[in-house]
């Protein structure tokens, strides 16, 4: 029917208009000119790959992701995406995604499935053991030969994460420092 790419995108934009204004999950218009997203729920997201910050629309049905495409209303990408951004659908729907908590015992040659409760309790215990064992109340400064209070946990390091949301980064930072972890580092150092 000779529809240009631009008209096509405008159609998509109309279809998602209700959503596009708020970005919150909502139903795409039943009058949508684009049949493939008719009746689907749509919400906006931002690409998880590079830091251009392109917008995408996520279409879902019955709690499943059906389609992901560029958000035509986003001022940076105006609906366009690169090959990685275009593949976000296969991050959401991918049989290789980890679905279970897995544990590998010392010296073992395999992972075994565990519950969240079991693993988190063990991890909390390990963190506490290491903290208690390696907590440094004071440290000698060789330059002036004086002891200083440092209140630091030296036996563990926390890494990550440039892939976390801001709110997650914030709690990660807060938790790390409360644990006394000085060795907090992430991708920005690389």
């Amino acid at each position, binding site marked *: 029917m000779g529809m240009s790419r631009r008209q096509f995108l405008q159609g998509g934009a109309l279809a998602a208009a209700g959503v596009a204004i708020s970005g919150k999950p909502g139903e795409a218009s039943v009058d949508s000119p684009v049949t493939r997203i008719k009746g689907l729920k749509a919400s906006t997201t931002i690409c998880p790959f590079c830091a251009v910050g392109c917008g995408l629309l996520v279409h879902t049905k019955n709690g499943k992701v059906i389609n992901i495409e560029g958000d035509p209303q986003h001022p940076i990408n105006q609906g366009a995406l690169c090959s990685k951004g275009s593949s976000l659908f296969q991050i959401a729907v991918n049989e290789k995604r980890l679905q279970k908590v*897995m544990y590998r015992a*010392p010296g073992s040659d395999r*992972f075994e499935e565990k519950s969240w409760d079991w693993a988190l309790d063990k991890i909390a215990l390990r963190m506490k053991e290491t903290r208690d064992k390696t907590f440094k*109340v004071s440290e000698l400064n060789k330059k002036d030969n004086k002891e200083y209070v440092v209140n630091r946990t030296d036996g563990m390091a926390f*890494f990550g994460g440039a892939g976390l949301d801001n*709110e997650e980064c*914030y709690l990660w*930072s807060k938790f790390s420092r409360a644990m006394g972890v*000085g060795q907090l580092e*992430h991708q920005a150092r690389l």
Partner: protein
Amino acid sequence: MTNHWIDLKNSDAIFIIGCNPAENHPISFKWIEEAMDKGAKLIVVDPRYTRSASKADIYAQIRPGTDIAFLGGMINYALQNNLIHEEYVREYTNAPFIISEKYDFKDGMFCSFDEQEKTYDLKSLAYELGPDGKPRRDNSMKDPRCVLQLMKKHFSRYDVDKVCSITGTKKEDYLKVAQAFCGTGRADKAGTLLYAMGITQSTHGTQNVRATAMLQTLLGNIGIAGGGVNALRGESNVQGSTDYGLLFHLLPGYLKSPEFDNVDLKSYIDKWTPQTKDGRSANWWGNTPKYITSLLKAWYGDNATQANDFCYSYLPKRMGSYAYNKIMDKMLAGGLEGLVCMGMNPAVGGPDSGNARTALSKLKWLVTVDLWETETSIFWKRPGVNPSDIQTEVFMLPAASSVEKEGSISNSGRWAQWRYKAVEPVGHSMSDLWIIDQFFKRVRNLYSKEKGAFPEPITKLAWNYGNGHEPDVHLVAKEINGYFTKDTTIVDKDKTLEFKKGDQVPMFKYLQADGSTTSGCWVYSGSYTKEGNQMARRDQSDPTGLGLFPKWSWCWPVNRRIIYNRASVNTAGEPFNPKRALIAWDGLEKKWKGDVPDGPWPPMKDDKEGKYPFIMLPEGHARLYALDLKDGPFPEHYEPMESPSRNQLSRTQNNPVVKLPKNVSSDTVKFPFIGTTYRMTEHWQTGGMTRSVPWLVELVPDMFVEISESLAKQKGFRKGDKVKVTTERGTIEAVVLITSRLKPFNVEGKMIEQVGMPWHFGYAGTAKGDSANMLTPSVGCANTSIPEFKAFLCNIEKGGSKA
């Protein structure tokens, strides 16, 4: 980025050095092309003829690790040919400031170097102060000890012939670049400079960045639409993760993490709050006491009081460096019991991966939180090891993807954009927010029930994010923004503002040092106010036409879309370029119009209230001369740690303040080629997020190494041959890709070949391949410790076990 992606359209010249946006930030090219459609020139300087280079008006080849020579030559070119924006330089930079008479520079070294400690005594390199305590200045900029004259002298050694001999660039190409870009040193022209890891991943990376910033400052390109120094950040939220202080030396909001001798809050504040004697300097970091106190209130809530120093003693104090490479060295030496990786993959992502993988096996326990099996989570069963030899206990936790949770991320242009949860996480996977919450609550439970080391920092931590299954992300975002802890009256000029206990703080200028406000990250104060979640805004209006989109999402600081924008106007507040007016002073209404200005004060010309534009520095002026960098006040060319060349500019071969590690070698007989790593569109970082995505795997299924046609001929390689690449650290095997994108470099008349390789591969996931970082050296920048991934020496031969 000082500016932002859409602003690229406002440029007259786009200078790409040390990044490859067409490949790695593809959508940014939309805006570069829009500028080009309007006549802008695209300049690409890169060791490889990249996808970005293929679109360029001017391409110049540069040998990896010689960026300071290249940029220093451009600084020299701009100074010698009087192409600088003189008014801007005189008024807004430290070019007229007089430097201590102790300053000296000889044969690649600044004065007062301590050979034993490998440090400079920065005091000898300071400003000379006048009787009023302010730096002395000569507005004619003719005093031989003023910054401009010292800079002229320093960079006069970087003449075009010398530079091209170092960088291997063809002279005609170099001159084209210098002419085209230095031509933006006029009020009516804007030049933007884009860089990424090609600039930072170097033993003199900070000075590389400085050289870019100095060039842009001399040309008057900072603070203007279409200008700026723009670091193209590579991960969706690496801007945010840095803002939130996930680095050993930082707390959220670029506050410094306390050092051992900051023994109490007062000494912390004394150490980290800069002072100025100049009333015309805004000295924004003078607000440090408000920001650290508000952070401590956010963290320790009602437990934090004036009487107990706001629980400052609960923060760990650092002594020395815990930079990534130091942590890995310590791990390798058996000095660590535990490691938690939140979406990070050190078995592939760091330098010298062979040692990194061995280091992981020295851990007692390891927790990985990711969407996939990563090389780190399965390091104990990697090829060539016997799992029974590895005693590390591993917890591999499944994390939710970005469409399965709600929260914000900050792009390279500092826009914090809100994402929504579209579906429930797959299988048993959980959001990182939930996982961190569980770590905390379970550890706190243990410390509440049992004895342990100094439990108070944990048991007294304020952690009130609702009673839901996971923390209410809106409550977290509100805490980051900050709120009033009691009813507060603030007199702001002619206005009296009343706030109730619990009200959101409107912006960081209302944060207090007395405990009456909280803010988990002051730079984000204003992101979640009583008007609601500003990060979720989707208003597409663009009143200036410059693409600022001020009501789309929210940008730190205070929604200012281009930082240092007070430098886009003259001292009377009139735009240098009225055609692209970013801000302008309205003398009648007595206010700024346009972008959110860098502070509300009137223009600098106002003797009473005017302020200098570079508000984050105590002297208020952009630093063409640095005061606090470990490797000196001006960038100076040194060779990478592994180099096929002697330093042609001085007898100081390498950055003198960087210690040379053991497994680095410049033996060009064993390792005759320059190795360099890079990224590509179809894969991302360590490959965890892409190498199990079928569409992407189909596009780029295998690891390869890229060489020139001339090297292929010399070695007798044919396309698709299996080859092995070796460095002092290790060997990898891959398929050889022969292209005309790579060419040898002219190093003092000798042609030196390069070997390029993506670093996205590893032994986990669907598409597997050897990791380029098996080859890279674990030696980093003097100031940041960022490793020298881009320039090392290697050999390449046919064969290997896969042949």
